[in-house]
């Protein structure tokens, strides 16, 4: 397991950078609020069964005698067409959105990062081929490729995650490759090469750990966009399927009833908006902190 401890050691500057960024972020009140809201959302996602007043309503329990009731002290966000408590469903939706967004971004990193390291570390034909493939993927408007892929894989939340990962990885490949190219000629890599370290070992244990910081920042900034994309796919019928309380799907189902039940579309939409907004606010702040030209101490 020596490579693991090596890997952790090489991450230390990254962690220091992160703590500094966190400190700088925390000084701006808007970003501090955003950080607090993100922490709250994570807590809501984890403790969803304890917070929601009617946990069974999150999935399929029905309660027809209370259908389409407006918000009240009993049903905070009102009820849907099957009498389910919308508040409980939105709470459980937090869990689904955060989970799927994290998995989708993680998958995209899993594809994109090694490919970027190989492209940048090897150079030559491998670099050329990998980068031209990313060009092709990036020449699709965002969301479009995800729509096409999840349509062909068949509509489900898992396939939507997969589709997002498959259309998202090229961004990470590009970032990693750019970093790797600049690190490839540094002294410590040359030293490793001089003592005969195999190329793939150089790429994965010398170059890769030093390229991770910007891509992790980018990935955390992308969470908001990915949540929005998942909601959009579900809205089109390509993501979560009923009775999953996914936010985009909730809004999609509400379309039949919303003119006479304003609460049905309103609350899931606010949930999406707030979640995406706080992630984007943090992303914006991180960008400013990391750019030396806009960084303010």
């Amino acid at each position, binding site marked *: 397991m020596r490579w693991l401890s090596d890997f952790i050691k090489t991450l230390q500057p990254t962690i220091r950078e992160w703590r500094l960024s966190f400190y700088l972020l925390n000084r701006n009140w808007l970003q501090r609020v955003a950080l607090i809201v993100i922490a709250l959302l994570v807590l809501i996602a984890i403790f969803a069964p304890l917070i929601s007043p009617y946990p069974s309503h999150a999935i399929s329990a029905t309660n027809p005698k209370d259908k389409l009731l407006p918000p009240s002290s009993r049903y905070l966000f009102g009820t849907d067409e099957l009498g389910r408590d919308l508040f409980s469903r939105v709470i459980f939706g937090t869990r689904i959105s955060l989970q799927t967004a994290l998995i989708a971004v993680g998958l995209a990193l899993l594809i994109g990062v090694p490919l970027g390291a190989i492209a940048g570390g090897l150079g030559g034909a491998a670099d050329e081929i990998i980068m031209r493939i990313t060009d092709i993927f990036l020449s699709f*408007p965002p969301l*479009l490729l995800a729509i096409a892929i999840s349509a*062909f894989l068949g509509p489900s939340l898992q396939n939507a995650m997969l589709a997002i990962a498959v259309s998202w990885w090229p961004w990470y490949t590009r970032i990693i490759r750019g970093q790797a190219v600049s690190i490839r000629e540094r002294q410590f890599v040359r030293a490793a090469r001089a003592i005969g370290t195999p190329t793939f070992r150089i790429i994965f244990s010398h170059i890769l750990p030093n390229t991770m910081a910007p891509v992790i920042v980018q990935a955390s900034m992308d969470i908001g966009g990915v949540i929005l994309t998942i909601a*959009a796919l579900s809205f089109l019928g390509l993501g979560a399927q009923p009775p999953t309380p996914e936010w985009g799907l909730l809004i999609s189902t509400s379309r039949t009833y*919303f*003119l006479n039940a304003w609460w049905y*579309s309103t609350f*899931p*939409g606010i949930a999406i908006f707030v979640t*995406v907004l706080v992630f984007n606010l943090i992303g914006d702040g991180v960008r400013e902190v990391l750019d030396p030209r806009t960084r303010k101490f």
Partner: protein
Amino acid sequence: MKKFILRRLLLGIIVLLGVALLTFFLARVVPSDPAAKWAGPRATPEQIARATIELGLDKPLYVQFGKYLLDLLQGNLGYSLRTRRPITLELQESLPATIELVLISTIAAVFVGIPLGVISAKRKDQLIDHLSRLFSIGVVSLPTFWIGLILQLVFFRVLGLFPMGGQLSTEIKITMDIPKVTGFIMFDSLVTGNFRIFLDALWHIVLPGITIGMYPVGLVARMTRSALLEILNEDYITAARSYGLSERIVLWSYALKNSIGPTSTVVALSIGYTLVNTFLTESIFTWPGIGNYIASAVIGLDYPAIMGVTIFSAFSYVVLNLIADIIIALDPRVRV
């Protein structure tokens, strides 16, 4: 200059080939049984066999790809499963409605977004800058399809100011002759002097236009602001100021002109976003464009139609980016 454009065009063609390759891969290689997908969910064995021959699935992959490319070049995207009509024809019919929407929102992006970005850069770190930044980050965080529903709720259901959807009122559709010159209702009615139809169309496009337009306005405002802020620090701006030129001339003609590069890139980008956002909003407003077309294709599992829209949108996105790059090349500093 000529050389640059030529090289960029060549690169564009290569990217288009790549897009064709990727869509081919997605439609023919990824599914375990592409013929069954192509023939639809309730196809008979004979229909599947016919699809196999039609797609050339019995031939090697490179022959299939050759045929696929040839079909694309001839504008042949196959037949819709639901209507059994050529997809190219159906796209042609629904395209004008979408272009109208995209155009309106792009005009908004340019005429609202750019001034917003300029004002924001001019009054950096003042209240109006904070507000406009909050606005731009807010609109890119809003789910487009949700804005559509909320606007319908407020402006149709509660206030009754605007229609719920459609391109024209039913009574006008029934009682009046809709002029057909180019297929663009607003343009056609204006050219033929049918002001009642024009006003009705205008009245109908307001809500979907706002829904679709919010995102590009925010995006363009944000981009213009950051491009301008960078330029306002340049020496030649200081020089222009020290000549005693008024701040207005410095800002609107010295600085803005030089931020045209990043701004036109982002306008091209936002047209791409807008096109995809129509997929999410047109069905809400029963707007008869390609967004509505793909939304119902998704529900009906009409794979050829989904693929057709995908290819069409990707191709137009590539072409748009090409145009943006060429506009940037008009900037002498970029010329190679």
